[in-house]
């Protein structure tokens, strides 16, 4: 694709801290290269803001390789922007053309409160993982990697679920602010493997209980989460979690 430069109008959500009101600010950015990533464009804007003595825009980022799950940003009405199966850091400016106006908002959900500007607090996800996203292992000398036979098909499904990077785009996209795609990916990747068997029932119950406690909504199977997921986590995982949860509720001996 041919290289080009563009001038853009950005409408960015600015919010001083968690308790302040917040509002949109409009910025003009010039000579943006089509080869830049979306976050590099924000770096250019922030450099300019710093030069002007203004507060730069706070946004989450880390690896910038699309694998860490830190970057967020709700761009023109879609988490991670217009591309499919893509994170904001891997969104490139060739997705836009000269003269475009781009509206950038933080993830919106009660369970993801804004910390500052485009940065939200996603520690609710960490607490859901702590509630059950672990397995029991024997300590001591390492076990041979192939000691436990795993069916190839299940290994593949578990791996596909484990690809979830916990970015929270599913919550941001869901009209109910439901975290079920995330929770179902985490439950599925362990429930499908023999290593996850010991805590299988309590895991489903505890992770869902923690999810509810964090204030996420209920799933109504609209499919918006799957459509925006940068790792293409399948909505089928949600159905798997539903059956795991129901069976655990019926068969679990606790409570």
């Amino acid at each position: 694709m041919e290289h080009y430069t563009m001038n853009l109008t950005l409408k960015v959500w600015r919010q001083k801290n968690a308790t302040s009101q917040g509002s949109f600010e409009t910025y003009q950015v010039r000579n943006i290269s089509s080869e830049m990533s979306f976050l590099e464009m924000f770096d250019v804007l922030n450099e300019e803001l710093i030069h002007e003595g203004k507060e730069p825009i706070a946004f989450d980022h880390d690896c910038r390789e699309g694998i860490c799950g830190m970057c967020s940003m709700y761009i023109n009405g879609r988490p991670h922007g217009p591309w499919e199966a893509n994170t904001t850091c891997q969104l490139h400016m060739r997705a836009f053309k000269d003269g475009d106006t781009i509206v950038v908002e933080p993830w919106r959900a009660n369970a993801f409160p804004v910390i500052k500007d485009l940065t939200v607090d996603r520690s609710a996800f960490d607490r859901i993982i702590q509630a059950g996203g672990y397995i029991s292992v024997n300590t001591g000398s390492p076990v041979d990697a192939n000691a436990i036979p795993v069916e190839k098909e299940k290994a593949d499904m578990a791996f596909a679920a484990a690809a979830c990077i916990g970015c929270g785009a599913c919550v941001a996209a869901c009209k109910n602010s439901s975290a079920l795609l995330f929770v179902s990916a985490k439950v599925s990747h362990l429930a499908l493997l023999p290593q996850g068997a010991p805590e299988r029932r309590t895991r489903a119950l505890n992770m869902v209980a923690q999810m509810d406690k964090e204030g996420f909504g209920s799933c109504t199977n609209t499919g918006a989460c799957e459509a925006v997921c940068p790792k293409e986590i399948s909505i089928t995982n949600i159905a798997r979690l539903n059956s795991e949860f129901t069976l655990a509720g019926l068969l679990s001996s606790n409570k």
Partner: protein
Amino acid sequence: MSLTGIFLILFLIVHVGLNACIWANDGGEMFNKAAHFMGANVVPRILEIGLFAGFLLHIIQGFALEFQNRAKRKQGYAVAMGNKGSKWYSRSMGLLGTLILLFLIMHIAHFWVPSRITGLPEAAYNPNHHDLFSEMVKVFEGNLLVVILYVLGCISLAWHLLHGFQSAFRTLGLTNHKYIGMISALGTGFSIIVPLAFAMMPISFYAGWV
């Protein structure tokens, strides 16, 4: 939602099947006999209690779910996501359900209340049977507004089922891709055929086909 939804789907099959008797072309005799059986036999009368409970539970659960979910995002987006990733009818189950509820209130007032409470005329072939068929003629014939409201009710039901049918099975934990495909196809067919058959009933009376 899913269990009550599937229960109500089963009810629709019974309802559409019995009502299809209006097309027997016998002046409503077969239909009135079917209606008499439903009203007089103990089994459908017990099931009727379950049906009311099923409706009530589905409605209460539906509203509770809708309001709880709406409250989970106090500050919304400036740019809505719209149809980027989900279908409008999947996101509008609360609205579609409310429209169906409004239709249901009108529908109960039209037919259930006269059948059970205020009374109906005797059927010509048997004085012990109600003439529910002539009540349908009275409600629909020459009454364009009522026919339009019934058709709109059926359209709301079609969209509601288009999401609800397959969603119910996902909620219950159906993960097999082969069966998900089958259920989705079955759901789409059901969502079109059943509401279409229902919609044809008031249209048939209005057009004078029965």
